[in-house]
């Protein structure tokens, strides 16, 4: 399979502060690759190196087999980019900004821009300075998608989008993938990555900890679940189930962590009168700690 992005020992220090260290990564053609990690983990640093805005301290990266520094102009012809901290020319209208960028890039089909704007329900005639952050974000998305690039690099693409637009964006990702485009997406939201990505790289404190297929991730994805009962329940009923951990009972409330299918738990709970079930998505730190042992004991 073709490799679109390849990094070899890619490392960036800002002075002595670490950006990212020894990143070895391969993104395959046609896949949606998620780069998951908390803020400040090194996702944006990686993306900005791929686009040659900053230069690696060590190591190198290639996109389409071309060197990201030497051939950056050639690469950028086929890349759409959405920055994490999007800023636009405030004195232009949305449409003027997009026209300017379409002109700079060249070969953009303006009809496609209009389609995208319609799709995202974006009014191009409004001045950018009057736009909400969600609407500015739409300008960012449109300019990233407008030339139908082979590779899309999107840094935190859904921040600031309302839920409806998020769904629309997920659909755009889906369609891009169907058309054979490759996507590299950074995010700090696990459910989002699970939803739209094929593979996920976990980044924490400047290190790539693990790369995993999302289908595998889902198998051992865990949640914290709270079940409220009408009366008190015996702890033993749940403690011995193989999929649960950390079982706690306080009167009528059962709390536990579950990894894998919920079936056994639900059947056990059904013996009692259930009032409410609450499921908490795990936060990233918990996932890192549970599955990858964190930094401190990463070797073990």
């Amino acid at each position, binding site marked *: 399979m073709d490799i679109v992005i390849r990094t070899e020992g890619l490392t960036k220090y800002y002075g002595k502060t670490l950006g990212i260290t020894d990143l070895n990564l391969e993104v395959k053609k046609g896949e949606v690759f998620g780069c998951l990690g908390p803020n400040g983990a090194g996702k944006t640093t990686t993306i900005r190196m791929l686009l040659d805005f*900053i230069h690696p301290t060590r190591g190198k990266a290639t996109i389409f087999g071309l060197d990201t520094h030497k051939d950056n102009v050639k690469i950028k012809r086929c*890349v759409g980019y959405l920055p994490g901290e999007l800023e*636009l020319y405030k004195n232009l209208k949305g449409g003027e900004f997009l026209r300017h960028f379409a002109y700079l890039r060249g070969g953009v089909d303006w009809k496609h821009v209009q389609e995208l704007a319609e799709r995202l329900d974006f009014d191009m005639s409004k001045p950018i300075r009057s736009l909400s952050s969600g609407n500015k974000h739409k300008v960012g998305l449109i300019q990233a998608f407008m030339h139908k690039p082979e590779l899309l690099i999107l840094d935190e693409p859904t921040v600031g989008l309302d839920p409806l637009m998020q769904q629309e964006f997920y659909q755009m990702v889906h369609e891009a993938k169907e058309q054979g485009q490759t996507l590299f997406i950074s995010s700090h939201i696990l459910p989002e990555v699970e939803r739209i990505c094929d593979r996920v790289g976990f980044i924490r404190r400047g290190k790539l900890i693990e790369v995993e297929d999302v289908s595998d991730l889902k198998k051992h994805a865990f949640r914290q679940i709270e079940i409220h009962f009408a009366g008190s329940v015996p702890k033993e009923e749940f403690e011995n189930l193989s999929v649960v951990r950390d079982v706690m009972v306080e009167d009528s409330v059962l709390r536990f962590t579950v990894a894998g299918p919920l079936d056994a738990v639900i059947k056990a709970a059904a013996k009692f009168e259930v009032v409410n079930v609450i499921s908490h998505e795990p936060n990233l730190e918990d996932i890192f700690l549970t599955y990858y042992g964190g930094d401190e004991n990463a070797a073990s």
Partner: protein
Amino acid sequence: MILFAFFICAFFPTIQESAAELETYMANMPEALIAAFGGTGSNIASPEGYLNVEFFSMMLPMMFIIYAIGFGGGVIAGEEEAGTLDLLLANPIPRWRVLLEKFLAMVGGITILSFMSWLGLVAGIYVYNMNIGLGQLAAATFSSALLSFSFGVIALAVSCLTGRRGISMGIATALAVGTYLLYVLAQVAKSLEKYQKLSPFYYHLAPDPLANGLKLGDMAFFIGTIVVFLAISFIAFQRRDLAV
């Protein structure tokens, strides 16, 4: 700018009328102050002397310098600080071309500004009967523009090196003020005389382009300065990590 240059000329008749008074006044002024106003014993009652004192020695270069430094300091660093540079450079455009286009915009800006000020002067000398050749005016305006543009390119170079608008404008402004003082003080202080040629103002003020036209050597100094700092800009901008 046209109007400003025109109105400078408008005051010439008044100045001429009180020429005698002014000359006694000037005679009593300390030498350094006269130097600071650009007069090297030149006659303020003559059209050349008047325009030199009122316009070409300080007012026009100052306005041009403010414009050029603001422009030069802002083009790269301004966009970097505003956070739009990433998006701009995500287009398939090499950094050097972005810089070249910004530089050409600077050249265009100062050219238009110079032309407007020249037009104003031409109108002024026509209306107020000042006997100066249009070529002389063009020479002095051009010399002022080149002097100012040099400081603009210095600001551009610092902006490319640091990505900080404030710093680049500050350094270029400090240089402009400093080298102006150096020139003026060297007019009167013998000990500074040998450093006078370090000041860009020397190449604009000393040859008196309004009276004598442009000299190749002086222009070469400015163009050399511009080329050197432009080269620094290109090298620095090409290599530097851009700020978020």
